[in-house]
């Protein structure tokens, strides 16, 4: 049994919260660069140019890329041979609290969703998803998620008979409904299969998968490419002002499902697709 201390977890979570909000991941930066080269709408190109400059300024001046520094989504993979001294959940939330304070990040979490809506003032709690895996390592992904784009995500329980066309229609509907609201160009994650709750998680994991990677099943890989082309043919464009670049990427994640169902979920992230990962 390998021991990992609370202190070590607090430190890495704190650093990841701060860095994720100031440094755009490399795959996203490259995707915006490519889009800038290809965009043929003037307003669209101008917008992408500002986004490139914004990312550089954020990095150089240690300023958050976006003012919505998000609610922290933490994805934790715990090796079954790891033992955390103290509270894992407590350590993650303490890391978030320190990171949002020391990094001058915006505290955007309210204690109660309906009645009180009182700011918790330290951006906790994080939304933590645990997976138990083999081995003696602890992997933590910190993905601060803004709600301009989160509000545009949707889930639908399709019928098996809806088939591939049903999936395409739903994905395009979600992107079209979202229009300019989630700050395009967007990063799209599509989940297919599992159950009502699992499919949303699949879509979020798809959204976090590296841009340019494909589903291991070549049929889904081809569908990823086809759907991305269809989304970019909608013409929404950067900032929604019209153009070629509506999405930078579209990834699909799948899971077996029930004979009676075909759940589909579409997660949308703005171009500030932040995430940091550490393996302890």
């Amino acid at each position, binding site marked *: 049994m390998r021991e990992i201390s609370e202190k070590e977890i607090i430190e890495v979570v704190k650093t990841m919260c701060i860095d994720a909000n100031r440094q755009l991941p490399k795959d996203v930066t490259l995707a915006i660069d490519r889009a800038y080269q290809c965009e043929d709408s003037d307003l669209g190109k101008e917008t992408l140019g500002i986004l490139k400059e914004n990312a550089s300024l954020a990095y150089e001046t240690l300023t958050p890329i*976006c003012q919505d520094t998000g609610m922290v989504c933490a994805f934790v993979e715990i090796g079954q041979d790891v033992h955390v001294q103290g509270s894992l959940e407590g350590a993650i939330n303490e890391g978030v609290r320190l990171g949002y304070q020391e990094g001058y990040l915006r505290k955007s979490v309210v204690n109660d969703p309906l009645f009180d809506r009182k700011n918790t003032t330290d951006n906790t709690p994080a939304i933590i998803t645990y997976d138990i895996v083999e081995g003696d390592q602890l992997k933590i992904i910190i993905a601060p998620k803004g709600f301009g784009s989160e509000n545009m995500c949707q889930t639908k329980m399709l019928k098996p008979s809806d088939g591939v066309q049903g999936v395409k229609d739903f994905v395009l509907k979600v992107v079209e409904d979202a229009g300019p609201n989630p700050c395009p160009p967007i990063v799209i994650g599509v989940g297919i299969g599992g159950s009502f709750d699992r499919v949303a998680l699949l879509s979020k994991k798809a959204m976090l998968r590296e841009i340019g990677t494909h589903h291991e099943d070549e049929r889904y890989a081809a569908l990823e490419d086809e759907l991305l082309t269809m989304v970019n043919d909608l013409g929404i464009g950067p900032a929604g002002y019209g153009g070629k670049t509506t999405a930078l990427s579209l990834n699909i994640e799948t899971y077996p499902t029930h004979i009676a169902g075909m759940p589909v979920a579409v997660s949308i992230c703005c171009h500030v697709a932040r995430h940091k990962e550490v393996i302890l």
Partner: protein
Amino acid sequence: MIKLTLPLSHDAIVNLEAGDQVLLSGTIYTARDAAHKRLIGLLNEGKELPFDLVDQIIYYVGPTPNKPGEIFGSGGPTTSGRMDAYAPTLLDLGLKGMIGKGLRQQSVIDSIQKNEALYFGAIGGAGAYIKSCITSCEIIAFEDLGPEAIRKLEVKDFPLTVVIDSKGNDLYKLGKEKYLRGRTNG
């Protein structure tokens, strides 16, 4: 790029068209969800607002805390649609412009047209870039709301695009149509 200095004259407002790119300089006020709710609450109680709305512009933003020695934090626009329920009331009282991002419902578009006002789009997610356009910031109301407090900002060459003009034209609709038309023809 059209340089605009606030307050905007009636002529300047009616001459701007959806899709025009502008650099805005002058005084604007920030307000988002909670501040709007309070402004409307004050109006309903017949009380005075913390600033005079006439001919002013509201920027929908909740900035990050500024670091020591800095004027402002990261401050890009938030989604405007959440302020749709409040916007027509403020426009009827003389508000001349809103800065945000994202779709507005028809009642807001109609009110913009009726009151000859403007809706500007700022680039969503460009918080660090927009920070560099802000030359002063003072909290003037609802300080307890933190990022949602009302701030009086001085801006210099704030890059914006006219999204809804005083005739009710909507760039989100027109821009997409124009782009798709160009592709079909090209």
